[in-house]
């Protein structure tokens, strides 16, 4: 599985909630890096075929890393830094648009 190249033992840590699991991760890391390092099998399912997908480019262009972050669907996990107390969920297929969401 994926491993961090650097020793993180002396880095400041924050805690995020990923699908109910509490992960202790280095502050300043992206959500996608944090979730990948936790040996996650997948981070979203495709809106078209439903197959499992995970982060790919890690630089904001491929949109493979979409997750629900603090309740916001289709968030690019590779472009967002972890924050203490953050809630991260897999993105299952396409998001919905509801009238309630806008008010």
């Amino acid at each position, binding site marked *: 599985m994926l491993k961090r190249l650097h020793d993180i033992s002396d880095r400041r840590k924050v805690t995020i909630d990923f699908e109910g699991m509490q992960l202790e991760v280095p502050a300043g890391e992206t959500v996608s890096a944090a979730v990948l390092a936790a040996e996650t099998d997948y981070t979203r399912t495709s*809106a078209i075929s439903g197959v499992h997908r995970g982060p790919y480019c890690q630089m904001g262009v491929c*949109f493979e890393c979409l997750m629900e972050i603090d309740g916001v669907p289709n968030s690019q996990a590779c472009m967002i830094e972890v924050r203490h107390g953050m809630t991260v969920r897999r993105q299952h*297929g*396409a*998001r*919905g*648009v*509801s*009238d309630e969401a*806008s008010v």
Partner: protein
Amino acid sequence: MEHSDFLVVGGGVIGSAVACGLLHKKCSVTLLDAGGDAFNASLANFGLVWVQGKGQGSRRYAEWCHEASELFPEYVRQLETETGIDLAYRKPGGLVLCHGEEEYQKREKVLERLRNESRHGSYDCHMLDRADVQKMLPNLTLGPGITGGSYSAHDGYLNPLALLKALHMSFTQGGGHFCSGTAVTNIGYQHGRFLVTTNSGEFTAEKIVLAAGNAMTRLSRMVGMDVQVHPEQGQLMVTERTRPTLSMPISGIQQTAEGSFIVGLSNRNVGFNTDTDTRLMKQMAQRVVNAFPALACLKIVRSWSSLRVLTADGLPIYQQSERCPGAYAVTAHSGVTLAPQHQIHIADWIAEGVQPEEFERFSTRRFDVEKTA
């Protein structure tokens, strides 16, 4: 040097449709396309098969678009069967939304005029009040400023990239010779034959069809025609994907089969320029949010601009050269909508001389009349 019955110059949606049509006439056809420009209208358009509102002041053009929409379902079925490519074509009808009273009245007048100009008042598109528009769009609540809209059952949409890909595949599978990356630099005419010079060799043909989008003005002069077109920039934005929400295309807003919303309401005269303009994007996004407040939460993931191909009066030009008989020019504002017309009737005209009804209206001679009048 390669010889064929027909050379078609321009592998956009118009040239490709005509080339496919000619191939069905058991002719040898070579399609030359300069390519390399990702902003060709055929690769960057909105994908509407759109009839309503078109052809004010030109009954024949309104009918021409309407006939195309009638041909479309069967046309798509054949192309999909031939190529196995899903064009994501749907024909649920289409809406134009009116923001405020003034837009409503203006739209009503447009439809009234089209109805008055149509044969026996048969023009088939009608105004809906706000409540009826809302009934047609059950998943999205209209913004408070929407006063109503117009609805036509003849409108539809498809995936324009899939259409172009399918046309290219159908052409090559059918035995056509497709030369991409081949830009025509000169066209000569001798003893009733055309000699075409390109950046990758010479080609000869009995007949030549020019369908080169915004390069038409320059190329048509090489065969003694004066087909004037100019670019008009249109800008599009694409949002993240959502579950199916918008049940029919709306002028300027549609949801693709994959779930993205495409927004595009702009036209600017800025020459051969495909910059995007953030102020314009903001205006377009605001209009969408005014129509459907719930869409404010969507992220825009891509945007681009591209160039429409416009004639002076916005109508198509279908013209044979008088100076060099056997040379034809084919250009139109709505190449997606008119694809079946180009593949069926324009190919019939070019290959067999069969002219559709009142065809003269689409020749460049209409401009001579205006000049002398």
